[in-house]
């Protein structure tokens, strides 16, 4: 049966070549869009790992002031913590959650080198962001007395750096001068929002006299509003004359951040949706015409005793074989992506995208072939043969 179908299609390869090209192109478009969707959806399904609803980001910039920056920053932090509206506050490097800034570096353990995001913060960050620790504890002031700089890493970092071992209390190296000791491990910290992939990350304690990292994350009590914000900005601006003071809500920056991912995906989705509708309609039209042209053949088969479902089955089989032809060509292109590791994406993403694209193509061609062949199959043999 299958061989017969192949022969039928091969005999008309001239007319079918266009159909094959069309299905192939549709498959390639689908593959591209689905890769994008699968990649983002997989990230979206992983929780971001911390709480941000009540957290504000106070950004200070010293501008032309160059004297005594560290004590001034300490004073600002003390002032912020003193407000009754503030639950707790923590200093952090400029790569605060959902910001566009990134600080990357790499660490080595047993010759394994892993790059990741570096976050410089103080001892309060875990409380401000409700970042639960999986193992160990968050670093404290007393850790600074030790020989190594205390750090907290995330699960992804532990997996990559220590393979199957536990990373707790291990000493790792950044460069010849800097050695770290892992005091705690958090589960996830997707600082760039829901759509970020869970990449390795590391928190390093800020030294007391640090003067470069001038962001303060503030966890406010529920119900705190812009009145307090205005007061805060005014007070800090008085405390630090000449400095830039800016307050942002993490939940606002999260929305902005995620829109950066969502809007392009949405545009692609709409455009490719239209493209596929277009293809489906065209396919339907072409198959309708082609099948209508073969009334004589249908009549003959019906007269010889083929049932309606058998005739329908034949047409569906034909279109499936045709789709398979194009999909094989499409797959030759598509498998290059996981094989050559294009864009450094997980292989799994490509494979899911390929499978989904194949499924969608089969569904589309089946629907497009179903109605015309169903219609054709109901024709009475006498009528069909009479026309001939």
């Amino acid at each position: 049966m299958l061989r017969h179908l192949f022969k039928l299609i091969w005999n008309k390869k001239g007319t079918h070549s266009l159909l094959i090209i069309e299905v192939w192109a549709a498959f390639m478009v689908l593959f591209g869009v689905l890769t994008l969707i699968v990649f983002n959806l997989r990230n979206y399904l992983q929780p971001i790992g911390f709480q941000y609803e009540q957290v504000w980001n106070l950004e200070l910039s010293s501008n032309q002031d160059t004297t005594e920056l560290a004590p001034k920053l300490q004073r600002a932090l003390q002032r912020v913590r003193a407000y009754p509206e503030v639950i707790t506050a923590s200093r952090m490097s400029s790569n605060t959650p959902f910001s566009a800034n990134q600080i990357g570096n790499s660490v080595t353990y047993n010759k394994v080198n892993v790059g990741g995001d570096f976050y410089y913060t103080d001892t309060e960050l875990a409380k401000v962001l409700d970042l639960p620790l999986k193992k160990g504890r968050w670093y404290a002031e007393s850790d600074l007395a030790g020989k190594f700089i205390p750090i907290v890493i995330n699960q992804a970092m532990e997996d990559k750096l220590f393979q199957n071992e536990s990373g707790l209390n291990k000493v790792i190296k950044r460069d010849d001068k800097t050695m770290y000791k892992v005091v705690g491990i958090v589960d996830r910290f997707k600082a760039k929002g829901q759509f970020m992939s869970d990449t390795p990350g590391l928190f390093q304690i800020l030294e007391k006299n640090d003067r470069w990292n001038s962001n303060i994350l503030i966890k406010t009590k529920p119900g705190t509003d812009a009145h307090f914000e205005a007061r805060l900005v005014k007070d800090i601006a008085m405390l630090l004359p000449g400095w830039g003071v800016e307050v942002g809500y993490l939940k606002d920056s999260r929305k902005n951040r995620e829109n950066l991912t969502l809007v392009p995906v949405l545009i692609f989705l709409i455009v490719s949706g239209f493209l596929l509708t277009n293809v489906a309609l065209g396919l339907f039209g072409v198959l309708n015409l082609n099948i209508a042209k073969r009334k004589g053949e249908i009549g003959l088969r019906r007269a010889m005793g083929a049932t309606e479902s058998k005739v329908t089955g034949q047409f569906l089989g034909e279109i499936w074989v045709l789709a398979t032809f194009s999909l094989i060509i499409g797959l030759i292109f598509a498998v290059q992506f996981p094989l050559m590791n294009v864009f450094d994406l997980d292989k799994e993403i490509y494979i899911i995208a390929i499978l989904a694209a194949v499924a969608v193509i089969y569904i589309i061609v089946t629907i497009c072939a179903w109605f015309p062949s169903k219609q054709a199959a109901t024709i009475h043999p006498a009528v069909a043969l009479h026309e001939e």
Partner: protein
Amino acid sequence: MLSNYIKIAWKVLLRHPFYTFITLFGITLTLTVLMVVTSFVDHLFGAHYPENKRGRSLYIANIVQTDSANTTMSSGPASFDFLTKYAKSIKSAERVAIMSNFSFSNAYTNGKRIKLNTKYTDVDFWSVTDFEFLEGKPYDETNIRNADHVAVITDALREQYFGNDAETVVGKTIDIENINYRVIGVVKGSPPTRVYTYSDVYFPYTAPKSNYENKGIRGRFAAIVLTKSPADLPEVQAEFDSYVARIPRSEYSDNNHFNVLIVKADTYFDHFLNTFARNDKDRITLYVIVGLVFLMIMGLPAVNLVNVNVSRILERASEIGVRKAFGAPSKALLWQFIIENVFITFIGGAFALILTLVVIHFINSSGWIAYADLTINLPVFLVSVLVCLVFGLLSGVLPAFRMSKLKIAEALKV
């Protein structure tokens, strides 16, 4: 002859509404997508308010420090000092404006927070750009010299901060981060997609917190060099390049980290391209990707149309047979079908134009981009017509070729 072909095409269209629908649906959607994209590209790169003189402007916005082996690289905006030394001094230019990239701030009024973008500019900024002043005037050299706390705000901020019913706001003060600025002018705002001119508040660069005093070559400023005419662009570029070539290495090497300095005065489009693709290889990759995406968007519906048309050959078989039997050459038939196709494409194009207007209106009014001013202007329209033609030919040639090749006997048999 032409009108005859078109008449026939029209009759064919009316004969099978379903197939006409498929055809027009495909054409309309494809062309709509392309027209909206063209309009958006025009919005991004064309000369529009307030950068109406983009055609003869050069942008200096990015400094790249690297080494000859390309192992380390650092890039970012320039410092005020750098631009004053090397851009302001360009003699062949008409004017040079220096402005900071926008930064963020907040203002508070009646327990409400207003998010602000701020920008520090020099006086020339107001002559290089074409901001429309609804009230007041821009700051001048005296304001700069005295380091006055003055500001030019946009109409949107005026409404948010002072309310709707304020008659005139010039002379009133606005409190931003605990500093009172006197409002000196109100301009019609510009969309945030024009990053070098977009802001909510404009300060003279001597106002507090602009950091224009910083030494070194990197900072947060950019410059727009206005030339006298578009023909002068290469000359000005050459002059700027010669200045850059003379910068001593000690100024940019950063303790011998870097030995190569790349700063270019580019037209807006080149400048934009350079932020994505630094070398020729990247640029080719970028073009290939964009080309492929367009090929897909246009190619898929075109193949679809060809497919439908080819399948419908037999519908027209008797007509072709009769015409051939009466001596019409293949060429005449070929032309007939191509013209028919182009005609149908133009009908689709007309629908697409209407649909595009709707989509653009939707984008403009959705607030997705503040002050969005997407339009279908003459260049966009001409590109669209061209696209229609290409699309019509693309989808028409093969079916026409096939139809004209039909044998007389075969055609008449059906």
